């Protein structure tokens, strides 16, 4: 049982890292929109066009670490008693 809970903790921590990496390993917090640069051909002004998009930030790392750590600590409740 202890081993299973530790495994779950490990997977949660790994999932946090994976989500953060797949989201572009951003240094900041999560965002709900992305700016795509467009060019106005006559004035040659480059301007951002906002598009809704969820990109995870460092919260996913923290959440993965907290959940993973919690499960790891929880696993010790299921340790075999010392003889």
């Amino acid at each position, binding site marked *: 049982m202890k081993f299973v809970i530790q495994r779950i903790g490990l997977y949660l921590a790994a999932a946090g890292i994976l989500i953060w990496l797949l989201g572009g390993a951003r240094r900041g917090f*999560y965002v709900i929109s992305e700016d795509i640069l467009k060019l106005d051909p006559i004035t040659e002004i480059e*301007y951002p066009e906002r598009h809704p998009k969820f990109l995870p930030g460092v919260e996913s790392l923290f959440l993965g670490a907290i959940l993973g750590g919690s499960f790891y600590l929880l696993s010790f409740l299921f340790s075999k008693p010392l003889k």
Partner: protein
Amino acid sequence: MKLLPLIALSSSAIVHLSANPVSFDFADPKGVNTISFHLDAPLDSISGNANGITGLVQFDPKAPERTTGSIQIDTSSLYVSNPTMNKHLHGSYWMDVAKNPDILFTVERLNNVETTGNITKADVVGEVTIKGVTRQITAENTTLTYLRGKLKARMGPNGPDGDLLVIRTKFTIKRSDFGISAVQDTDKVADDIEISMSIAGQALY
């Protein structure tokens, strides 16, 4: 009868000599006009944009050094991509949008003016007003590009005839000068706010 061409020439010369600055309206119907801001710090960086831009700039292509005018930004149009940060940005510690609906930039004069063709480079001296505080600024190496008769090409075949004026500039202001989140530690959020502006104004014929 022989006097007619002479009268026409004289009239033209008078018009040329007394050419008035043209007023360019920066409320862009295409929604391209954007002001970007960036705050960098060791622990975090914040970048965002604002697109609620209006204002009038008086520009004379024959005397660009006489350029004056003002640009307003609707404070509620400031945005960052994180919803929590956006809420803070509009809140009372930061921009206090409810009490300060506009940011105002005024152009008082141009220094070190150099014009090549339709492009004028200059140091723009003016004022910026944020949260009721006014400070003088100098936006060095500002570019003003005058696009004569290009409005129709930009707005499409049914668009009006007119000229365009494109202003590109970058300058830095201090967050602490304007009481923007004054209690915030500068290790977490930079005191310098880098502002980048690329905006186009139109003048109808």
